[in-house]
């Protein structure tokens, strides 16, 4: 579900621009310019491989961790329809994690290494899941607006250059469209329901608006690095562009239900057509990425416990003579 547009890259700017074979590089870039996909065993620049692994891996982590905030309410979903829908939706997140780890594996990093990096705090995931889902209405806000933001990002990335990631995203985007409908449905029922329900969803919206504004990351610094990622179709749109697209599509859908968005400065500039908004506190964003958000510890602890508790199961099933081969596609 949750490919936050923001790829956490604190060492990227320190890495020197790597030296690759110029002939191979030219062919590689020409292929991408022609709109062709790069497949797993193709020659690729070291920076491309590294950046893709990082991006796909973070996306996969976001899905498996993303299963936890809404998972909070699985046992309490009201009524059969919502219960089954939420179970199916959270199941899809786990399914998406599986698809994305598989895509990243084609680039040579094992699933075990990726999961270890997640639970050791070395790899990041979308910040938005470090916030708590306090009420049932939070499920509505996450299911509607965060899925919506993720779709903006995923649709853009699905036109990228790496074959396996594009193929995974095609299916993910398709399933996300169900999630969006389900999320929007809960959101609408609450907003148009009893006063208690309406208040519940307004309060949830108030709490989640800042993380939603953080979702696409801060404005990109247009460096040589960013320019290269866009030429290689790894980064398909700027953070600001995606945020603008999201606001254009979804702010009206919130306002049409008579709900208020907790940002007095949020409005569309009639001349530029661009949304202006209040500063969403980027300091908080960076604090949460560093590990100091309300739920970071819990999310990692749960993931770690799940892996630890399953260790005896996996050990029992493993056969000594079976070995792993890097998947093909």
């Amino acid at each position, binding site marked *: 579900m949750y490919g936050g547009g923001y790829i956490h890259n604190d060492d990227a700017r320190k890495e020197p621009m790597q030296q690759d074979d110029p002939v191979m590089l030219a062919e590689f870039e020409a292929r991408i310019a022609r709109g062709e996909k790069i497949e797993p065993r193709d020659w690729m620049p070291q920076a491309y491989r590294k950046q893709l692994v990082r991006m796909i891996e973070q996306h996969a982590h976001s899905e498996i961790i993303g299963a936890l905030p809404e998972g909070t309410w699985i046992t309490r979903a009201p009524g059969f329809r919502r219960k089954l829908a939420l179970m199916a939706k959270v199941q899809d997140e786990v399914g998406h994690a599986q698809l994305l780890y598989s895509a990243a594996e084609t680039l040579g990093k094992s699933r075990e290494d990726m999961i270890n990096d997640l639970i050791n705090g070395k790899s990041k995931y979308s910040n938005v899941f470090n916030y708590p889902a306090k009420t049932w209405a939070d499920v509505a806000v996450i299911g509607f607006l965060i899925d919506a933001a993720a779709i903006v990002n995923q649709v853009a990335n699905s036109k990228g250059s790496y074959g396996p990631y594009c193929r995974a995203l095609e299916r993910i985007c398709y399933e996300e469209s169900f999630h969006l409908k389900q999320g929007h449905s*809960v959101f609408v029922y609450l907003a148009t329901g009893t006063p208690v329900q309406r208040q519940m969803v307004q309060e949830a919206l108030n709490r989640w608006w800042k993380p939603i504004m953080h979702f696409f990351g801060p404005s990109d610094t247009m460096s040589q690095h960013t320019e290269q990622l866009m030429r290689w179709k790894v980064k398909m749109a700027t953070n600001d562009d995606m945020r603008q697209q999201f606001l254009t599509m979804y702010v009206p859908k919130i306002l049409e239900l008579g709900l208020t968005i907790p940002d007095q400065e949020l409005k569309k500039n009639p001349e530029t057509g661009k949304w202006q908004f209040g500063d969403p506190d980027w300091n908080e964003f960076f604090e949460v990425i560093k590990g100091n958000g309300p739920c970071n510890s819990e999310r990692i602890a749960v993931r770690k416990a799940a892996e630890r508790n399953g260790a005896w199961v996996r050990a029992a099933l493993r056969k000594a003579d079976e070995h792993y081969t890097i998947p093909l596609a």
Partner: protein
Amino acid sequence: MFDPKTTAALKKMLLVTADDHLILGHRNSEWTGLGPILEEDIAFSSIAQDKIGHALGLYSILHEHLGEADPDTLAFMRNEKEFFSAQLVEFPIGEYDFSLMRHFLFDHAAQIRFDHWALSSYEPLARLARKVKGEIKYHVFHANTWVKQLAEGNEESKARMQSALNEVYPLALGLFETLEDEQLLIENGIHKGELALQQLWTNEIEQLLGNFGLKVPTQAEAILGGRKGYHTEHLQPLLNEMTEVFRVDPSAEW
């Protein structure tokens, strides 16, 4: 269609199995996101959804054909004493050995039960049973594959499976607790009777588990009472949790 006493017995029979499936599906949904490997997490979640779907199918028959309240009301507004699920299904998920063994024993019982219901003289039930046959087939395939591989895995997994079997088997016998007026259901061709189903189930699981190297504790005493509304300390908290949001306003649309 049937006389009042038979109809009452039929309703109880449907409610009992609906409750079993709802509570077990609910318990198994607790594994979503926490499973031992991603692919199994996904599979087990589907099975839990199916169980809840089967519960919904049974509650729907009660509502649409037998004058009972709608499924949401039936599921979310009753308290512990009014639930007739076997005590087996209310136990916490425990570790994966417990949950898998519960899944194995329950699903073999469900397969036998629904296979017989497909021939029931009560048409709405026969129709539902035929519809869910394929889903249950997968559940049993999943359970058999897992229990076999763990029973034949390593020393630890073998010991865990045996220990789980010892613990779950007496509880599973509670699935076949005979209902009052069962005789009327048998006479009318609605149901074959719990004893008959239990015998088929015992033969099947003893053979399978024996092949996997596990010993069924056949002398164990059945843990009964669920069918009369007697439950352990686990059910009421489960129900409180399950109904927490719904009861904020049962008349609201969620």
